[in-house]
């Protein structure tokens, strides 16, 4: 298990837990980022925001938010 900001570009991950509270969890849920969602990491350069793909739509997630999303790799 690791946080989303550590996921490699090109990998597919499943969300295990979102460690944010309040407003932000709500926002993430609205975007479809909830427990058990499967994401594809399109871009992660370890400096700027991550780009992930979820159900065909692309979402940019800042590193701080990404570091509070726990994920696991799936094959």
């Amino acid at each position, binding site marked *: 298990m690791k946080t989303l900001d550590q996921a490699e570009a090109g990998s597919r991950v499943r969300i295990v837990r979102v460690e944010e509270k309040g407003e*932000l969890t709500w926002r993430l849920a609205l975007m479809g980022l909830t427990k058990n969602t499967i994401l594809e990491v399109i871009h992660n350069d370890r400096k*700027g925001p991550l780009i992930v793909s979820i159900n065909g*739509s692309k*979402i*940019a997630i*800042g590193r*701080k938010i990404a570091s509070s999303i726990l994920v696991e790799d799936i094959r």
Partner: protein
Amino acid sequence: MKIRVALIGQPNVGKSSLFNVLVRGHVHVSNWPGTTVELHRGIVNYRNYVLEITDTPGVYGLRSVTLEERITCRNVFLHGYDVYVVLVDSTAPERTLNLAVELLELTRKVVVVFTKIDESHRLGIHINYEGLSRELGVPVIPVSVKTEFGIRELFDKIIDVFNTSHSPKKTLNVDYIELNDLINEATKILENYGSDSLGRLSSRGIVIKLFEGEDCVEELLKNRVKPEDWSKLLEIRERAEKLVDEDLLSTMRFYRRGFSLDLAKKYVVRTKVNVDKDTGLLRLFYNPIIGSFLGLTIYLSILTLIFTINTGFPLTTLLQIFGAEHLASIIENLTIVGLIDRFVEASSTLLVNLIGNKLITKFVTEAVIVGLGTILLFTPLILLVSIASAILEDSGLAPRLAIGLHTILSRFGLSGHATLPIILGFGCNVPSILSTRTLVNSYERLRLLITLSFIPCQARLIVFLATASALGSPYGLILVILSYAIALTIFIIINWVLFRISILKGEVYIPDILLEIPPVHKPLAKVVWWNAWSNTKHFLIKAGFIIFTVSVINWFILNYSPSLNLIDNPGASIGASIARYLSPILKPIGIHGDNSWIPALALITGFIAKEIYLVTLLTSTGSTDLSSAFQTIGLGLPEIYALTVIVTLYTPCLATVAIIYNESRSIKLTLATTALTILVAYLTGLITYVILRIII
């Protein structure tokens, strides 16, 4: 005040997700009376109102066939709500607009909401909400449950609609061709009853539903109208049935459907979008270093282009530096500001020649034409910025630029979401503040509401350029560069300070980016125009009135003495005596003496709009150009610089103040922001003066 709101929509238009977002998940679940169908209800407190929102079962039309449809119809026809929110699926407007039309025939207490706008944008569907709203006569707003875009506006519109008293007669009129006469005949009978006894629904709408054979309406009418009227109504319906080839219901549906399709044809356009084109060049925006560089380059080019078209700057300044003075002045005359200046001047001269030099001429040329000229001047300034922003939004470039610039902005407590507001701010603070609505972090949005007015808009650019040309080379150009540099530095410092304060106060949510990236496509001219024009129009309506009124007041206080006599010498005017109280404040920046009231008055009137500052300097000194105005007042280089710095930083205009209040709904925040800008402006002006005194 309590407002009972009903959500009405077809199945699968995104009704329950919108409902959940509106009530923030606080749903009260019970059953609809006498049934096993679940009733979802939620309470929202918003601006001193209590909104009781009911999620009605999904229906394809207002017709009782299934149990769920029956529930919705009974509640609309027999119980009624204060406001109806009817949902249209923006990915399939042709199919889902029909229900809104049906409801609008019955009542105008409606807000039309287009759902799934992220998805329709991805599909390349564009909708002219402004145009639809005009045609339907009720608010039409796009809403995204993903980003909560439009949710606040929806609440505001619900309250607006609740507070507007419409005559129920003025509902939407669909043309039923051969049935119109009979519909009118029946409507006349019902009009004797008054709308209160008809569930506050329009008589015509009820007749239409009666013709269609809707049970609930029959039930309503049987109880409320006299038996003889009821049999007359039935007789008219029989005649209508004989008039049409098919059955009455299908015929009426056919006409209504045609009406909805025509609406969709007029206000919806579709483009082809290649979904997975996000490769190669576009990926460069994702890189924090290349992305920032690309983003800044694109934005700077756009701003330069807009500035040049409007004012000639920086092209004319460059030409002057390279000695092409003649070419520069030709270009300056052809810029929008140059053209409008000449137009205003020419019309004033024309008026003087036509009616002669009377008081009314003086009033018209100095108050009315100056006021209208200011509005006229603003229009292209705002329009060009709106067009640029609409192109960036529609093409899908704006979110990529936000990602590219996120890393830089995050150093000052902002995020990539602040990119568009900041860039728009250079054009005009009003659309800039409006665009903060898309921000995720409410603290970040608050900080931007407070600080965005430090970004120098084009009105201030006009002040810089006029002052610069009065100063001549090289001090003029230095002034322009210095003003921008100081303003940006202040913007960054204040943001950073506010961010630190909020961390000390325990803010846990550090601004970060979270946004959906739509596919890129070529912007559509029609769509760009819809958006840009609607922006500009809103500005003109809001600010135009303020600017015009205040120009008239301004003329009055400059031309009348405190004893209300018409005077020639502005020094004896009401304005001058007010400004004399304020002028001692300007002493520390070296402005004193008999005429020190003039810059004081210019600063007071500049509160309204920044070019009025210039107008006041000219009219109060009785000069035609700024350099002689400066001479009359007795201003040297350090004083002019300090004064310009103050103009750059204090409250940009009344319209901005109004927008800050509108967006924050807090008088405290609006006043605090105004006080902050004035204080910062004064202190920075003072520091500038002291430093210049030491250098020169």
